[in-house]
């Protein structure tokens, strides 16, 4: 099957598709790339989540920015393309803490762990099973999600590529 289009999902972006696509995010650091898909109806979407909670912020210009706004919006867009809630599955990658300062918890630098926790919590809240993840650690990641092969390939600099 040939891939018809490559879509780059930038920071805080959110994309849902129904045609063969490669959804790509380059250089995830503390952010999370989440994909949710319905393999039966061949619908998939990706969001590039930057922060765990929109309640800490003022206006929400881009729902893809926060875990608590990105997950419901993505589900809404998938549903509009014909996805059924009972078919949905999710995969996530990202949430690294690249800079570790000994002896410091350094709140802002540790946002990756909170992003992972919040994204999982919201997936569970909407009963979307998380079928695969590559999260945490101290290395950035580039990810590609193939629609409709449903594999998420995760590339880490100096380490290689793994398929989820």
């Amino acid at each position: 099957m040939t891939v018809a289009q490559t879509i780059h999902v930038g920071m805080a972006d959110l994309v849902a598709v129904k045609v063969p696509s490669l959804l790509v995010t380059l250089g995830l650091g503390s952010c999370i790339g989440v994909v949710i898909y319905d393999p039966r109806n061949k619908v998939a979407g990706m969001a590039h989540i930057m922060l765990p909670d929109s309640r800490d912020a003022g206006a929400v210009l881009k729902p893809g920015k926060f875990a608590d706004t990105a997950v419901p919006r993505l589900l809404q867009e998938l549903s509009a393309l014909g996805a059924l809630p009972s078919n949905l599955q999710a995969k996530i990658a990202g949430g690294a803490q690249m800079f570790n300062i000994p002896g410091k918890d350094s709140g802002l630098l540790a946002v990756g762990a909170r992003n992972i926790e919040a994204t999982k919590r919201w997936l569970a809240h909407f009963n979307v099973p998380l079928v695969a993840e590559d999260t945490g650690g101290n290395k950035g990641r580039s990810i590609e999600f193939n629609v409709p092969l449903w594999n998420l390939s995760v590339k880490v600099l100096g380490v290689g590529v793994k398929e989820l």
Partner: protein
Amino acid sequence: MEWGDFSNLQLDAVREVGNIGTGNAATALSQLLGRAVDMGVPEADLIPIYELAGRYGSPETPVCAVLIRAEGDFPCNLIFVIDEGAGQELANLLIAMDISTLDPELQIQMRDSALGEVGNIILGAFLNAISMLTGYVMPASVPAVAHDMLGSVMDIVASIFGVIGDTALLVKTSLQVKDVECEVNGNVIMVPDPGSLETLLQKLGV
């Protein structure tokens, strides 16, 4: 204050902080290496955080980044970013001996330690300049070194600015080491904690 509301005068003031900081950092690096170090004109830009990943190069460019965290009167993170190849060159300049026969793991540790020290001196000099300008006390952390994609480093910068808004005020300056075979260019990026830039601007009276 929303980030987009900064006036040109305030941007100029931030640029000047970058200028003095980088001047200090260039002198420190030059003394450390015993070589001439040039500095570029600092940029202070308001950039939508969503454009940060590709702003300074391809997101997948391998870079070496050294970060120190300053607390106290002006809490911020300072990051020194350099292309991976140039970073290795810089580490070799500092080590100034042939370590290629050593255990590879030990070589990595020695280079990382050297890079951490370079970052520490450059960023420490930058902080000192802010401190002299304002009288602020800003105890700094030890340096943290990462080798990663440029996009991933900028991803973290974007998240810190993203906490309060959709725009980043980025001070970026460049340092260039002279008289070396390989070109060594590095950038210093200042990332103030949410809200702390306003304090700095007030102190500077703009």
